[in-house]
């Protein structure tokens, strides 16, 4: 019987490019427990949002994540548009959809490469990232920047798309389509991939639902769920596409789901380019500052299907020119519990690919910072200030964790509702 050992990994480590720390409890080669600390990238964006105008916040929130930046701006501007009662013109909705799908393509191709790298299949890495350049070129031509496209503005989009760009994107998508067929045929059938991914990191459908997994991670476990279908935004109610699911819940299933989603994205882009309506780009010719001057107070919850799953922005307006609160719930945060679930029982060597399996984005996730007090004195300090187990990343206004009163309420609720559990 092997002895239990704790292995700390990170925050600087070779497998992921972002800082994250994993403490693995192992027995021999097998992982028996895992603890994650994932808030090294906490920058305090939700606090900064409150000191900036709605217009400035588009560009700040865009920089939550450099991979799914369009997701964050779309979710935010949609919320603000709801507060203002603006209806976005058709052409703008289509351009948003176009950029969103290009973003999904680049994100999934990026993941495909990283997944290849994690299992030591660097050829796939180089292939996927080479093909990804076609998408990056399209985004650059369309918006002017490779990352952080800033195409969204309140009430519409900033840039129009001309016929030359449309033709260029069409050509690239045709080429990319062939490459995706090639991946679909070769990658899941490749022996290296099968050996490393089949029956590794399995999350059953029931566990995926219980742990509230989202996006391709949930869909690979057979959970139907896609905001694009459930609550269509932009132009998704006017395009035809399938929600891809798989049954097995292992890494091979996630690989399969993501590659098939690539094909769906290409199909959506082709439809958007074919049906692009003529018309205005913005809801109103007034400058956005003038529109925002009339913002009502109220709450709004905006949902969006980011490449990694469902993203929600909660926006509370108090009628002033800065939002009172913006809370961001990112898909990666929802998916972390499945990682802990999948790590238990797997081998140490599988850690990188199991972690990479949910396509983690630490810069997205680092919204909160909860730490357990190390000793009595620290705990006493924390109790005095009314906050338990919260590190410096919380603020006075928004401690980001439980206060003692919250904990008490939670405890009462838990014990009283015991018979229903």
């Amino acid at each position, binding site marked *: 019987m092997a002895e239990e050992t704790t292995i700390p990994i990170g*925050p*600087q*480590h*070779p497998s992921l*490019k*972002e*800082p994250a720390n994993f403490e693995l409890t192992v027995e021999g080669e097998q992982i028996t427990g895992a603890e994650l600390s994932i*808030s*090294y*990238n*906490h*920058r*305090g*964006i939700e*606090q*900064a949002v409150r000191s900036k105008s709605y217009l400035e916040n588009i*560009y*700040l929130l865009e*920089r*939550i*994540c*450099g*991979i799914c*930046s369009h997701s964050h701006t779309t979710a935010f501007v949609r919320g603000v548009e709801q507060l203002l009662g603006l209806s976005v013109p058709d052409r703008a909705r289509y351009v948003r959809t176009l950029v969103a799908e290009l973003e999904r393509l680049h994100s999934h191709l*990026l993941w495909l490469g990283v997944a290849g790298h994690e299992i030591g299949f660097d050829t796939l890495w*180089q292939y996927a*990232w*080479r093909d990804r*350049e076609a998408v*990056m070129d399209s985004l650059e031509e369309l918006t002017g920047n*490779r*990352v*952080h496209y800033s195409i969204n503005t309140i009430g519409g989009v900033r840039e129009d798309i001309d016929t030359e760009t449309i033709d260029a994107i069409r050509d690239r998508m045709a080429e990319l389509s062939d490459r995706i067929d090639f991946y679909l045929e070769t990658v899941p059938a490749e022996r290296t991939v099968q050996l490393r991914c089949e029956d590794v990191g399995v999350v059953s459908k029931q566990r995926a639902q219980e742990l509230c997994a989202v996006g391709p991670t949930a869909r690979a476990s057979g959970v139907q769920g896609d905001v694009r279908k459930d609550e269509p935004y932009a132009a998704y109610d006017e395009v035809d596409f399938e929600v891809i699911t798989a049954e097995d819940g292992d890494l091979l299933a996630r690989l399969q789901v993501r590659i098939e989603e690539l094909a769906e994205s290409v199909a959506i882009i082709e439809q958007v380019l074919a049906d692009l309506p003529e018309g205005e780009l913005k809801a109103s010719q007034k400058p956005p500052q003038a529109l925002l001057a009339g913002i009502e107070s109220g709450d709004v919850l905006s949902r969006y299907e980011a490449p990694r799953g469902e993203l929600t922005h909660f926006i509370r307006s108090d009628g002033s020119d800065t939002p009172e609160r913006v809370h961001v719930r990112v898909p990666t945060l929802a998916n972390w519990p499945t990682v802990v679930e999948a790590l238990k029982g797997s081998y140490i060597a599988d850690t990188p690919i199991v972690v990479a399996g949910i396509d983690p*984005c*630490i*810069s997205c996730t680092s919204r909160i*910072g909860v730490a357990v007090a190390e000793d009595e004195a620290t705990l006493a300090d924390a109790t005095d200030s009314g906050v338990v187990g919260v590190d*410096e*990343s919380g*603020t006075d206004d928004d401690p980001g964790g439980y206060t003692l009163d919250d904990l008490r309420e939670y405890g009462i609720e838990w014990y009283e509702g015991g018979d229903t559990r």
Partner: protein
Amino acid sequence: MGKLLEWARSASPWILHLNCGSCNGCDIETLDSLMPRYDLERFGVLKKDTPRHADVLVCTGPVTRQMEPRLERIYEQMPEPKLVVAAGSCAASGGVFQDCYSCHDGVDEVIPVDMYVPGCPISPEALIDGLVRLLEESGEGGKASRLRERSEGIFEDSDAPAGVIDDEHVADT
């Protein structure tokens, strides 16, 4: 000895990339510059996974408070002579995260920086240009003599402690 190091480094600089609270944009672009399209590897640039093998540290992000001690430690672990590139607007000045309670305003608040590459995010071309200029400037005829002095400090002049940063030369670079 300084010449040997200089030759080896400019022929094949090994880089370590560290995300100090960046949004991923610059990190992906840094990796992208090593990928088939830009292919920095053909110039001998290799991405290393450990600070002990690296010549150049490419930092991205405004340096969050949690990453600060880690960044310092990784900088200390790198062998002399070492060069630091602050990649992206955040790493150079804090960018959009200026004045955030959990961030510094750039890498140079924590460790000395030799080259700033602007952009939000940096384009791979900008990073390649930055690296080439950095290696040129740190070379024999360049104006950044700090590096040479440091390496001399290690191998020849035992009076000068290695790793001590001379303010005058930092201002030069």
